[in-house]
């Protein structure tokens, strides 16, 4: 019970901090001081307190987009183990629900973008659904490989395995899977080199272009669920790549929080030292992730 409570609290309170860390790291590389670590919390709470302006073209779908996205990501977050503590909800086949919740959120965010009738938002939505056609199978290759490795069908068992010590033969595939997963995380959370969350030059954007017309509380929700999505996907990678356990429950929880921040910092470094890929190059990157996942799986099958 306590585990579940801490899980939910982390899921809902930690995410904006990750954005703060990324911002700090990027500011450091740019030689700036940067916004305070907690700036995202302030941004979101300010947005939640504001009034809204709606485009006259929009309908209820426009409002449903951010809400469905948040709920879907929150439910997906309940299916994953956070570090050593197991997931509050776990059943055989929950990884499929996990993946399809992201698809649900994508359906409604892209539909909301199209609801504005703006070419820019249509462009962002078109890119989002196109890239998902490659990142989603890549994610399933990762799940297949983990399921083969652990002979289990639930995320808690699949991701908990790497802490319990895996056979040496599993290490090479695991490295490939982690690399693939990292690319998927960058793509799904719209970071450089796939997307650039910092500019507002709409022609180059995916995520930012889709939310141009959202304002006030709904925009706050979008920012919040974007950060929560980052946390959820990060925890997937952390369980695989950084399976450190201290033995004490509270220490492990702290360790997990620290690991998410470290990973966020890594993403910040990536964003600082790399340029965004040209749009037509992105499918190649994602195909790379797909092939990494596929190779990892095939190595395990033999």
């Amino acid at each position, binding site marked *: 019970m306590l585990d579940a409570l801490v899980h939910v609290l982390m899921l809902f309170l930690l995410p904006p901090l990750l954005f703060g860390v990324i911002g700090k790291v990027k500011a450091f590389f740019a030689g700036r001081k940067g916004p305070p670590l907690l700036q995202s919390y302030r941004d979101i709470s300010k947005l939640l307190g*504001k*009034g*809204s*302006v*709606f*485009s*006259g073209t929009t*309908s209820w*779908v426009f*409002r*449903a987009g951010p*809400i469905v996205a*948040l*709920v*879907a990501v929150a*439910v997906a977050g309940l299916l994953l183990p956070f570090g050593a503590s197991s997931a509050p*909800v776990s*059943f*055989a*086949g*929950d990884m*499929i*629900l996990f*993946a*399809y919740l992201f*698809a*649900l959120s*994508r*359906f409604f965010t892209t*539909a909301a*973008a*199209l*609801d*504005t*009738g*703006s*070419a820019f938002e*249509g*462009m962002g*939505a*078109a890119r989002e*659904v*196109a890239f*998902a*056609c*490659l990142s*989603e*199978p890549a994610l*399933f290759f990762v*799940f*297949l490989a983990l399921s083969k490795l652990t*002979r289990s*069908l639930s995320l808690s068992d699949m991701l908990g395995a790497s802490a319990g010590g895996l056979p040496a033969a599993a290490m090479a595939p695991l490295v490939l899977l982690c690399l693939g997963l990292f690319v998927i995380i960058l793509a799904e959370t719209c970071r450089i080199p796939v997307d650039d969350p910092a500019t507002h030059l709409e022609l180059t954007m995916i995520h930012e272009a889709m939310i141009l017309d959202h304002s*006030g*509380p*709904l925009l706050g929700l979008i920012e919040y669920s974007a950060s929560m999505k980052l946390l959820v996907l990060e925890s997937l990678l952390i369980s695989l790549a950084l399976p450190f356990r201290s033995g004490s429950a509270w220490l492990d929880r702290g360790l997990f929080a620290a690991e998410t921040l470290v990973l966020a910092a890594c993403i910040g470094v990536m964003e600082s030292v790399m340029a965004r890929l040209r749009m037509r190059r992105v*499918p190649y990157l994602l195909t790379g992730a797909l092939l990494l996942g596929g190779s990892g*799986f095939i190595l395990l*099958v*033999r």
Partner: protein
Amino acid sequence: MPLELVVAASLLAAASGLPALALPRRSPWAQRASVLLIVLASAAGLAGAFAGLFSVPSDALILPWPAIGDSFIGLDSLSSFFLVPVFLVGGLGAVYGLGYSPAAGNPRTGRRLAVFYGLLVAGMALLLLARGAFAFLLGWETMALSGFFLIGLEDQKNESRSSSFVYLVAAHLSTLVLFGMFLLWRAATGSFDLERSGAAAMSLGVAGGIFLLALLGFGLKAGIMPLHFWLPGAHAAAPSHVSALLSGVVLKMGVYGILRMLSLLPGIPAAWGALVLVLGATSALFVFALAQHDLKKLLAYHSVENIGIILMGLGIALLGRSAGMSELFVLGFAACLLHVWNHSLFKSLLFLGAGSVVRATGTRAIDRLGGLGKTMPWTAALFIVGAVAICGLPPLNGFVSELLVYLGLFGGLARDGAGLALAAMAAPVLAMVGALAVACFVKVVGAAFLGSARSREAEEATESPASMIVPIGALAALCALIGLAPRLLVPVLDSAIACWNGTGTGVPSLAGLAPLDQAGLAAMALVVMAGIAAFLFSRGIRARGEAKVSRGIRARGEAKAPLRPTWDCGYAAPTSRMQYTSSSFARGIVGMFSWFLRPSPEPRRIQGYFPEAETLHSEVDEAILDRVLRPALRLLERLSTWFHRFQQGLAQQYLLYMLLALIVLICTLVPAGGLLGLAKSAAGGAAGASP
């Protein structure tokens, strides 16, 4: 008793055209009477089918057939399972027809529609009840021919005529193959009765022949990937409630045929399962739907993908059975069956929704629609429900059947060895299919119902009458019910699986194998949480919006927040023509698959400072019909032109041919043997001497 109910229902359905034939063409009462008969038939048929799902199979009735002996009809769980969508969609579609094509407005087609709609339903019911080849083929042909007349209903249109003829050719090819299959069956078992007992001693080669012929013949009807060529045109041309029945139910008769024949054949080898799985995966990954500009054609193409998912389930089931993993068999088979129901629900929903759009705007071109969510709120909301369901997203029914497919695919990993692990590679394929479906239906929903109207027709659209909305709503409610409480279907699926599997070996119940309770709970949690969040935020938006906005704007805006034009990066006068169209939306993915889709033509590069006016019309040809069959047939036609020399339409010439033929025939009577007699006896003598 269930059998009698279903038989009565089919007779009622077959007779439902009579009032329309008897009464004047424009009389609304004729149409109402026909619809009433169909609705009664549906009610009786559904009652019979549900009772039949849980009762002992009965072979009670004999269809007397003087020429070749009697033919049996009977009802078991597998038939009952497929009868449910026949009568459900048949009844709802008929009610929908009241508003969609009222008799007063369609005096030319009303009678034909009523007669053949009823015959289509009755034909399907007969083929599902048949336990002998002849009754089966009778039902099959009734279905195929009524389909032809319904597709060609608007025969003043060129498109309608040509697609109905393509359909007719495909339907008869399929019947021809089925004739071959039943003859082979007869040769192997000694009877036309479709009974398991006869096939027990069949050799693998003969069984394989029957299986391949069944896959070809029934696959043509089901629209498996290379055999789907007739499908998009036919389903797009038919009236929408007929399209719903064709796409939602008639295709499933092909699936039923494959299942029924497989249930009769002994000892299914793993290779068949692998073949079905590969066919399913390629059909599912058939991206042509995305590239369509025609609302109904897109939906029709998407049927191919869903038939692919159904076949994937069947493939897993067969693989699991031959590997001796009964849990894999149950999961795969349940996925196959459940997706049959699910697809018939959401595909009919989407076709009926599309029909509502077509009726209101008079066009099927997606890029001429837009903004219908405001003028047709009910149609739009229900269509979105159907779109979410067909993408396989929680919390609706599509997710449940796809979950079962995935569980089957992942379940194969529990066994060592590469075979089932290779089969599991179909899971990423299905994931890509899911992502493509999301892209496809976001495109449709976004371009047709969201944004602002792109044409005058779309702007002036009005909501359809209740007789059309209520059937769509009923289908949406069923989609939600299966999504939220999938557990309810466990007894139904268990019973149909047990029926297919026969009495020999017991199979575990689906309830213990799939997390249906959890899936249902997660779906409910999703709905409840979304509801709470929506409530909180709508209050939040309203309260703060009111504080800051002047009274005038508040009175106008429904959500009490100010309404402004869409922000278009500083451009002051955005128009609806500047919206992203469905073609541009799909272009990214069409580009990724251009090696396969080959869209035509690529836009020409604009050159010079004062370029001339350009037009661009992009089209993706039908893969098989336009690129393989038509060129092949044209080649055949060219090769056979030399034959025209002999066929010039002159009566004298034909008389000459007759004379020549007669002379040749008479020549055969000449004792030519006598002339050769010497040589023959010499040869005979030599042969006789040699041993």
